[in-house]
């Protein structure tokens, strides 16, 4: 088989997102932040969100990680920008569910935009965490009240 199976995981669009990340950097105004680590590989994402009138007005991330985690953070920040907090949380739930093999409606999938491509990660169980890290960060950033850092992840 060799590396041909990799095409399923590293589609061109994924490599493109990873090589030319979107929304990577620091925001000047943030209301919600979250730093998460993937302790198995050392990947880190620091997510910054600016929520205004219950909408994600702006979102950006810094951090370091593999192609999958970087592409996922790029795609996630793209698709949730402008969404309400509830919509973004629903999308995060859809993505987390898909990654663990749960089914969702076509409408839910459509809402994920480009990010739904990454659900092909299911074929590579060892890499699921890489793809879900940014979505978990989003979930936790939006759900917590204060700006305390999550230390135990």
């Amino acid at each position, binding site marked *: 088989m*060799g590396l*041909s199976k990799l095409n399923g995981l590293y589609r061109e669009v994924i490599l493109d997102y990873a090589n030319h990340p979107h929304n990577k950097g620091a925001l000047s105004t943030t209301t919600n932040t979250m730093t998460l680590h993937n302790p198995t*590989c*050392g990947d880190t994402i620091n997510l910054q969100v600016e929520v205004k009138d219950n909408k994600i007005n702006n979102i950006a991330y810094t951090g370091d990680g593999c*192609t999958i985690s970087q592409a996922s953070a790029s795609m996630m920040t793209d698709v949730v920008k402008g969404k309400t907090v509830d919509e973004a949380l629903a999308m995060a739930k859809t993505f987390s569910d898909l990654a663990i093999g749960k089914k969702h409606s076509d409408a839910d999938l459509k809402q994920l935009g480009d990010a739904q491509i990454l659900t092909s990660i299911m074929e590579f169980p060892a890499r699921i965490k890489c793809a879900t890290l940014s979505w978990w960060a989003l979930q936790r950033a939006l759900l917590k009240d204060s700006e305390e850092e999550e230390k135990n992840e």
Partner: protein
Amino acid sequence: MDNNINDFSGDFPVLDQQVNDERLVYLDNAATAQRPRQVIKALTDFYEQDNANVHRGVHTLAERATKDYEDARQKVQVFINAPAAHDVIFTKGCTDSLNLIAATYGEQNIKPGDEIVISIMEHHSNLIPWQQLAKKKQAVLKYIELTADGELDLADAKHKITDKTKIVAVTHASNVMGTVTPLKELVAIAHQHGAVIVGDGAQAVPHMPVNVQDLDVDFYAFSGHKMMSPMGIGVLYGKADLLRAMPPYQYGGEMINDVHRDQSTWADIPFKFEAGTQNIAGAVGLGAAVDYLSHVGMKNIQRKEQSLVNYVLPQLIAIPDVQVYGPQLPQKHTGVISFNIKGLHPHDVATALDMDGVAVRAGHHCAQPLMEELGVTATARASFYFYNTKEDADQLIKAINETKEFFNIGTI
């Protein structure tokens, strides 16, 4: 290198398989080794013939199980040349052994202002117990740094270990840098200053002859599973006078001499440190692994691994955009080879190599302070054992070249 003389593949059923439609090349031996049939059979025999709890039954099976367990202890004693079998304590693994020393000897002997000296290349299991002990006791934790070549800096060790140093804890072989540390010299330095020294032998005992009396080390810890035993069994060697002076690690059955309503006394070593029912089958399996390794011969194993490193390391270094960490000279490098491909994250590299049947580890290898020191967040790591072959090395090199090609970097 002649592969025919060194063909062990028939003894390792797990190696005879395909993954992702490619021949499996297992190069994650620094994480855990594979088990030969002989070890698996020892476990089956134990469970099918002798299984019972040890030291507390008068029936025949209990006697047999006790003999199996104590025979395993003697095999380990001979294997590392400990003065007596009671100096060999069975634990859950290397991590457990190191925590035991910190929680007993460390707890008893470290005072505010004392120094604990470790090296920057320690695995978290030989780092966090000392870091937390130092914090709790207001002691000072000091790190021995690396040379430019990635070896332990002995000159820096002489500077860091002082009369205030009470414990020195260092790895005998690095799980990242592929180096063997000058443990014997470190022992001499520690003893000159009146400190005890702990050797972490997790990456040494499976790969080279280790003689704890020749090293004169005070404590020495290692895991069974990296030397082909079942998981969940490990060893703590300690000098008898030190072990006897230490308080127990855990309380319960087996570790007592006499128990009353308000007080208890403890069993002699090694049982003082073996509370509760131990991993008896694990110890039996470790004994069988020791038999296997002794039969092959640790010098032969060391020689075979060195010839693999001599073969693969220069090829790896010659690939454009591949960076190998630690010494670049094969004769200075063990079978643990950490590397990165420029522009690629090691996690992506490991997934790609897996598609070519090659199992390597990617990550920080439980050595985050060392990763910080190297200025990386993670590396890929190929780690060889004596049953690996030149063919395995060829498949690794080929897979790395294909990985580069797939991600479209470099000149291919």
